[in-house]
């Protein structure tokens, strides 16, 4: 009965519309797999849990949870006891329809069979390519043996021929003499030279490239936790990627959207999150932003945040001891060194991250072109970012790499986006079957002034 009614309700909403609502309002705190807790509880089965109460209560809860708690609703109070002090934001602007839609979406996501997550393009395909390089070595060794045997044979035959010709002084050359022959030296030098040139050229080309670059960052921000575990959409924080050339490193106030509620980290406790607070001037003890933070001295700031760290240490350990003293001291020292550097002597102000992906100044790259127009996943270029504790440059970001992708990648929405209508010949070819796809290269995507101007 409960299931049936849940099912009936679910049919009342449109999951597709609900997806948008979820993305805009819920996705920042609730896991989109609907099965695991994040900042907020897992939403799967929410309707069952609320089935004992009128539907309106659920609406009220979603619109303004604190209101419902204050009114003493038993379910609301139970949830609050479990989750406090994390407060759910109020969404008074959500209509009943919105809520039905989002509930439908939750139900759909919760009940659907788990699909194997699509891997990033680079590693997609599942099985690794079989490595056949050992074969080359086998061939090399066989050939080398054959060469040695042949050379010995030739030497032997020469020797025999000499003997036959009556040259009594003739000697069978020693094995080592083979390596002193002109022919061998010529071949050997040629190979050495070729290998040297190959290496030098390759190294020269790679000068300035940073594939695998994984610098230490001022904050141990973990993409594995945020994007991997909690499945926060990349573009939620890197909001520039949709609309600008820059993906945009999120500002501290973006972090505060969630971390005003989550003040102590699961891995590093107060050590890392306090850096954000100290950057923006948020006092977690009083849950308020500090007035005239910019004018405070380092000592004053130290007082505020060491108090916070000390309090949290006490909460965690029950008392404040010598270890606590050193921990707080160390954490503070780390905060100071992370938020200051040779050009920035104040703790206040922006967090200066180390740039991982550096394109040269003469390259123009636009994120929105690739993300919004091209519909690419971030992972295509940035790799399995959701698995990285510390971000690493995954792709070589070389011109060859870019061009190669432009040659292979099909233009997204070539048929649907009216912008591309001016490419009438390509459309005709597609329609007539003369062409199976239109790649970025076909519409000029490998020309110099697409990236260099």
């Amino acid at each position, binding site marked *: 009965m409960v299931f049936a009614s849940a099912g009936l309700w679910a049919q009342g909403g449109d999951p597709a519309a609900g997806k948008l609502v979820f993305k805009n309002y819920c996705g920042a705190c609730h896991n989109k797999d609907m099965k695991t807790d994040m900042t907020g509880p897992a939403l799967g089965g929410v309707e069952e849990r609320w089935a004992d109460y009128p539907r309106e209560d659920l609406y009220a809860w979603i619109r303004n949870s604190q209101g419902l708690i204050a009114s003493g609703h038993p379910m609301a109070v139970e949830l609050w006891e479990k989750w406090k002090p994390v407060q759910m934001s109020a969404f008074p602007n959500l209509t009943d329809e919105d809520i039905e839609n989002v509930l439908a979406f939750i139900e759909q996501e919760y009940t659907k069979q788990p699909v194997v997550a699509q891997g990033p393009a680079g590693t997609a395909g599942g099985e690794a390519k079989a490595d056949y390089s050992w074969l080359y070595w086998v061939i090399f060794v066989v050939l080398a043996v054959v060469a040695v045997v042949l050379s010995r044979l030739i030497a032997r035959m020469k020797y025999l021929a000499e003997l036959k010709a009556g040259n009594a002084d003739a000697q069978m050359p020693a094995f080592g003499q083979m390596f002193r022959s002109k022919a061998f030296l010529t071949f050997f030098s040629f190979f050495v030279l070729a290998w040297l040139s190959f290496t030098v050229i390759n190294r020269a080309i790679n000068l300035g490239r940073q594939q695998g670059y994984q610098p230490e960052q001022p904050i141990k921000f973990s993409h594995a936790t945020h994007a991997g575990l909690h499945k926060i959409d990349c573009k939620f924080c890197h909001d520039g990627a949709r609309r*600008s050339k820059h993906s*945009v490193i999120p*500002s501290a*106030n973006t972090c505060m959207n969630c971390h005003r509620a989550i003040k102590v980290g699961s891995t590093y406790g107060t050590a890392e999150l306090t850096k954000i607070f100290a950057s923006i001037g948020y006092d977690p003890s009083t849950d308020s932003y500090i007035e005239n933070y910019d004018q405070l001295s380092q000592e004053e700031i130290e007082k505020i945040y060491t108090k916070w760290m000390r309090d949290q240490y006490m909460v965690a350990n029950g008392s404040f001891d010598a270890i606590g003293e050193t921990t707080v001291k160390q954490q503070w020292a780390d905060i100071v060194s992370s938020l200051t550097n040779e050009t920035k002597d104040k703790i206040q102000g*922006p967090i200066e991250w180390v740039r991982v992906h*550096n394109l040269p100044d003469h390259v123009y790259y636009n994120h929105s072109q690739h993300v919004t127009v091209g519909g690419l996943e971030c992972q295509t270029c940035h790799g399995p970012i959701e698995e990285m504790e510390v971000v690493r440059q995954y792709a070589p970001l070389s011109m060859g790499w870019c061009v190669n992708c432009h040659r292979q990648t099909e233009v997204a929405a070539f048929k649907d986006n009216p*912008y591309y209508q001016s490419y009438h010949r390509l459309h005709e070819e597609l329609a007539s079957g003369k062409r199976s796809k239109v790649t970025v290269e076909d519409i000029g995507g490998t020309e110099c002034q697409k990236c260099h101007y």
Partner: protein
Amino acid sequence: MKKNKQNFWVGVAQLKDTQKFEEISSNEFPEELPLEKTLTEEVLQAPASRRDFLKYLGFGLGAATIAASCDIPVKRAIPYVVKPDEIVPGIANYYASTFVRGGDYCSVLVKTREGRPIKIEGNSLCPVTRGGTSARAQASVLDLYNVNRFQGPGMMKDGKFKAMSWEELDKKVSTALSSAAVVRILTHTNLSPTFKAVLKEFTERYPGAKVLTYDPVSCSALLQASEATHGAAIVPEFHFDKADTIVSFGADFLGTWISPVEYARQYASRRRIEDVKHPNMSYHVQVESHMSLTGSNADKRILIRPSEQGAAIAALYNALAAKNGAPAVPAPKINDKAAAAIKELSNRLQSAKGKALVVSGSNNLGDQLLINAINQLLDSYGNTIGFERVSKQRQGMDREAQELLGEMNKGAVDVLIVLGDANPAWELPNAEEFRAAMAKVKTKISMVGVPNETASLCDYIAPDHHYLESWGDAEPKAGVYSLQQPTIAPLFNTRQAGESLLRWAESANFDPGTAEEPPYYRYLKKFWKENLFPQQSAYSDFQKFWDHSLHDGIFSLPANADYAVNPVDVQAAAGMQEKPSSAELEMAFYETVNIGGGQYATNPWLMEMPDPVARTTWNNYMAIPVYWDGGNEWKAFKGLNENEIYGMADKVEVEIGGRKQTVDCIRQFGLAENTLAMALGYGREQIGVCGYQEGVNVNPWLGLDKNGNVRYYATDVAVSDKVGEDDAFACVQYHHTMGVKGKDPKTGEELNVDEKTVMTLREGYQGGLTERSVLYYGSTKNLAELVEHIKEKRSEAQEWVENSLYPYDEYNEKYYSQGHHWGMHIDMNACIGCGACQVACIAENNVPVVGRKEVSRHHEMTWLRIDRYFFGDYENPHVAYQPMMCQHCDNAPCENVCPVAATNHSSEGLNQMTYNRCIGTRYCANNCPYKVRRFNWLDFSTADIFPANEYYVSNEEVPFGADNLTRMVLNPDVTVRSRGVIEKCSFCVQRLQEGKLTAKKEGRKLVDADVRSACQTACPTGAITFGDLNSKGDLAKRLDSPLNYYVLEEVGIRPSVAYSARVVNTDESLKPERGEEAHGENHEG
């Protein structure tokens, strides 16, 4: 009349010594590599030992190894702490604001990136400028990042600036004001109604205070004449678009006079040929003594000596008076040619009665009164001159500055406050006297933002914000209100002048405000709420009204049209006129488009922008006339400047009124006989680095007339013989010469100067083509003939275009015919040569400034140049301006000679230049028939990592553009080029890419408005149209005209830029081509 109608030319050198000219012009770069200057004999002869060789080899290897093993420096990515909602890094924001400097006005959109203003665009909602801009407005963004700005308040002690705090300064000023009996505020024209309210509060608080207004280049006679005729000192509304016949007595209304952006648009609307069968062109006559920008666009120029202007006006008045039964005035004799021409002109004007407009730039009251009388005779009032929206763009009265000087001399002034750009200690004709009188003023306060001569003599400096940091408003024309909003927080500890004055006036309306809402913002808003909001009815809520006005940048109210047109006392007017002088030599002084009265001299972009007519940069050369003997002989005044083409100018000593100065000369066409001309505004002494002692200050040579108005000419001129030579002749007129035909004096053969060495003539090879289509011109009389001629020439050219090695049709079918194919059209009748596009291009594309010395070596980096060609009569020629930039040829000759394919063609028809691939062979530049490619000879932009390569523009401490302040103006979407690479116009590819992306993101077709080049948006007259040749947009319409041609089309390289032929509205038949006859053969006695 000595005449040759068949030729067009760029300068005397070309006409006189064709061979030499060819030699110079045939090379892309005219000089040898400048090695001999850096490598002395000693260096060249120094023996190199094996030991040295090994040393260098070892060092080189070691250095390379170390450099290669260096770690890549750590780069930081710094996000906002709290990101402002409206800023998305990487996306530009546009704010409507107002460029105002004295009376110069332009409503603008300021493009900001990451909070930095980087480019000025026109605001199309403005009824005055309609989206047009001027070179001055375009360049104004660079002034914001001027390293010489005052960085805070201070006092001048022993000629040195000593910083102080605002509190200290306010205290000192208040003390001085409280004990002062006479306070004087001196200002240039001020357009701001709110600021005027501030001044009113100030003068009410200090009853001894008075505001005096003057302008650096004066229009006070015009204002005085208005006072007499219309009852108020206003500039009436001129309608150049409604006039069939326009006569201007020395008023440079397209370049500098009152409201050039507005007038240029009006003027050009009647100069375009929309329909070749019925050309509806206005007829424009310019009566002047040297060639101004406006004169160069005229259909007919009547040459008079500067002192003859009054008599010429009187002559025209008399001729018209005779026809209309009005009394005549005494008119002295002027030169015969001009007298005859004016008589003829009067007939034409009379027949255009009601559709004629006569204006004058004269600063003589009598002249201006007679002009008003002439316009009354012609029924201009109510037709071509209106009062609905009178202009307020000039308010300065010369007599007010003189009045102040008199008071100061008497020691009667206690406190003098000098506002903004006002610089009386340099600008006034008697500036020396003013400087002396300043010592007699107890307290002097300057509010200028950048050091000037007056500020250096003041006691306190209370620096004002730059306009891009300011709140403010302007009322350029009655009822048109333009808002100014800051686009960046103040860079320095400056304060708005309005706020300072309110504080000093202890105003009751002063609201200290907050950091977000500074006091002057509150004051401005209050002023609008109390004064403008009640006058409108569209909005009932003030905040909505305010938001809307701020968004648009413009708010208009119906204006009061209540001005009288009183009869002019012509006899009295004639009595006030200046009489023609009998002096042998006269000199005219004029305002240039770029430098103005000197207030713009601190801007390197404007300093390096060539004067449109003289084509000179960084200096005010004295224009000297050239004379032609009717044969092959050309002689310049006193035989000067024989070596102009080699980058040499002669120096002479000029004495006027007992003051002697050494000036550089330039030969100039279109000067009246025995007349010299020099530009105002050069030779500043206190300005910071740029503009410092560039050129000669001519202000001391100016005089005052009977009415106390400044006289912009001198008659007692004595010029010495050559006293020296300037080897940095920074004139670009002989640079990048293209497609010009000459005649070999030995063989008498016609030659293409840029290709003469390639082939013998008329052999059918590219190099043998002689009929070069650089410029087509004709007159309205033979328009049909011109159309026919262009058609014929273009069909001849087709042969060469089609007989190409390259399979164009295949490319066209495969690439160009689909997607985009970019193209441009330039209407040479709408182009007035004002140079706004050139500065816009510099700002948009990070084009470096190279300085005077480098310009003289042909190293200017401008991607867009405006070629100026003379044609017609040698002694009084017509002019055509041809903006020339990369033509993006579809069979580009530059592309196939590049050894590294750094320049190649895109499927959208762009001739792409990839800087990072360029190795600097310069083959492309050598092979470009248009000579539009520029080579970075030195590290002009200081992008190089080796400081030794950096180039100094002037004597600045840090190379121009190397300091972080100036670099803030750079467009982050365009690469800054380093030494050793070629660069050129890219059709603003960054804008194309942005426009395409916007369309893609919005999922719609591309429209014209998405892709507009910087030059196109800057143009006040809409002469440039950019677009997609594959679409049916604006460009397609323009390309329909039968007057269109492609420059050097016969070379077969398929350029993408079309030009329309230049047409002059005259009965004279200008043969629509360059004829076969060379110069000097076809002259009529």
